[in-house]
């Protein structure tokens, strides 16, 4: 009589703990690799050779290239803030406070966050797809074969350019936001220019400006390092490049929003104790 192999009778089970353990290991590996790449991109700043022309190219792509969307978005964020708050302040006859709210919200929070998210959408994806394509077509290996350090040549210039340009873009977005806010408050609340701008500027303290201009430095670092990491770890050809591009935007955006919370907490603490 034929007997059945007992192994065939065992159900094909997937170990949940095994899958979780593998997933955790992969996640830890990603964190480690990302931290190493980020660290290396900074340490390359302290030894030659320096790729100054690459930094300037990236500043043009990231800074000048992102300027139109950042200005447009900043303008309408300021404008819509006034629309949303004006009705509330009108009820109490305190329409002049609209300028305070727009100014504080833009400089402290919305300017850095919205600009960070916009630049992440535009540039983290660009970095991931550019470096990913270079990986797929062996251009990064060719670079290494010719004695060039890819981190020094590709990652550090992007990191430096984003860190330098994001605070400037944020300042421009804040300014255009205030202009948008002023135009809407003039037409809806009949708020005069002197009244609006005096309140908008007087309400800002040094700690607000510190908060508004420190956050973009961190966000810039996140955008560049996440974009470059996703690009340099592409696997699976052109499909992989597509995945890395999407992943870069999602990861950079989440990192920006999460770090924004902790940075705000830290800045508020510093504002109370240091500044």
């Amino acid at each position: 009589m034929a007997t059945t192999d007992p192994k065939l009778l065992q159900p094909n089970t997937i170990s949940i703990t095994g899958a979780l353990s593998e997933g955790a290991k992969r996640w830890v590996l990603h964190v480690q690799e990302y931290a190493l790449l980020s660290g290396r991109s900074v340490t390359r700043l302290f030894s030659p050779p320096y790729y100054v022309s690459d930094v300037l190219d990236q500043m043009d792509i990231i800074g000048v290239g992102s300027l139109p969307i950042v200005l447009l978005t900043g303008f309408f964020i300021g404008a819509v803030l006034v629309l949303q708050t004006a009705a509330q302040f009108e009820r109490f006859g305190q329409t002049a406070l609209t300028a305070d709210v727009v100014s504080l919200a833009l400089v402290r929070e919305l300017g850095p966050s919205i600009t960070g998210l916009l630049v992440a959408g535009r540039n983290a994806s660009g970095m991931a797809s550019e470096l990913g394509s270079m990986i797929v077509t062996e251009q990064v290996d060719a670079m290494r074969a010719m004695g060039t350090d890819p981190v020094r040549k590709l990652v550090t210039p992007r990191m430096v350019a984003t860190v330098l340009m994001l605070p400037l873009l944020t300042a421009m977005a804040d300014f255009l936001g205030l202009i948008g806010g002023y135009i809407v408050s003039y037409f809806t609340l009949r708020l005069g220019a002197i009244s609006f701008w005096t309140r908008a500027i007087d309400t800002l303290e040094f700690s607000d400006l510190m908060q508004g201009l420190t956050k973009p430095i961190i966000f810039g670092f996140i955008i560049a390092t996440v974009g470059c990491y996703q690009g340099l770890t592409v696997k699976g050809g052109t499909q992989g490049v597509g995945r890395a591009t999407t992943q870069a935007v999602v990861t950079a955006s989440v990192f920006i929003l999460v770090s924004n919370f902790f940075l705000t907490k830290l800045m508020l603490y510093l504002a109370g104790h240091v500044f």
Partner: protein
Amino acid sequence: MSETATSESVLSLENVSIGFDKGNVLDGLSFSVAPRETKILIGESGSGKTLILKLAAGLIQPDSGTVQMLGHDLGRMSERELLAFRRNIGFVFQEGALFDSLTVAENVAYCLREERVKEEDIEPRVRESLRFVEMEDTLEKLPAELSGGMKRRVSIARALVSRHAWFSMILLRRASIR
């Protein structure tokens, strides 16, 4: 492939193994290349020919075994040392691996600019190198405007343009071997 490396070997691989998700690609590989010797690697797709060349240039490290090139044990060198060391090696990639945003002239001049060669010396050397592979008329073209064979010839010119690169490894696809 199994040979004993001599002390005069330019390249020697000793008991090299490397594997990926689907198992070992190279298992206990040993061979050596003497000065002025030409070695041709023949094998089906995925058998590890490109992998051997990347190991020889230190672009990847083996799971076990040693790779020695020009008397250096590549496994004992840091990435910084390897980067400096690779300037002595010319490497031609299977598909050329030209920088697609640079012109042919800029691609060939890349190594020279990295070595901080004077600008006035770069153009004659780029022309000389491109003339050698009969591609002098493509100086201002972008890699996308070239055929596969032309890209590989430019890649050979790029590998040979550096005068430090006195040892060259050239990987040719079967269709390119006449």
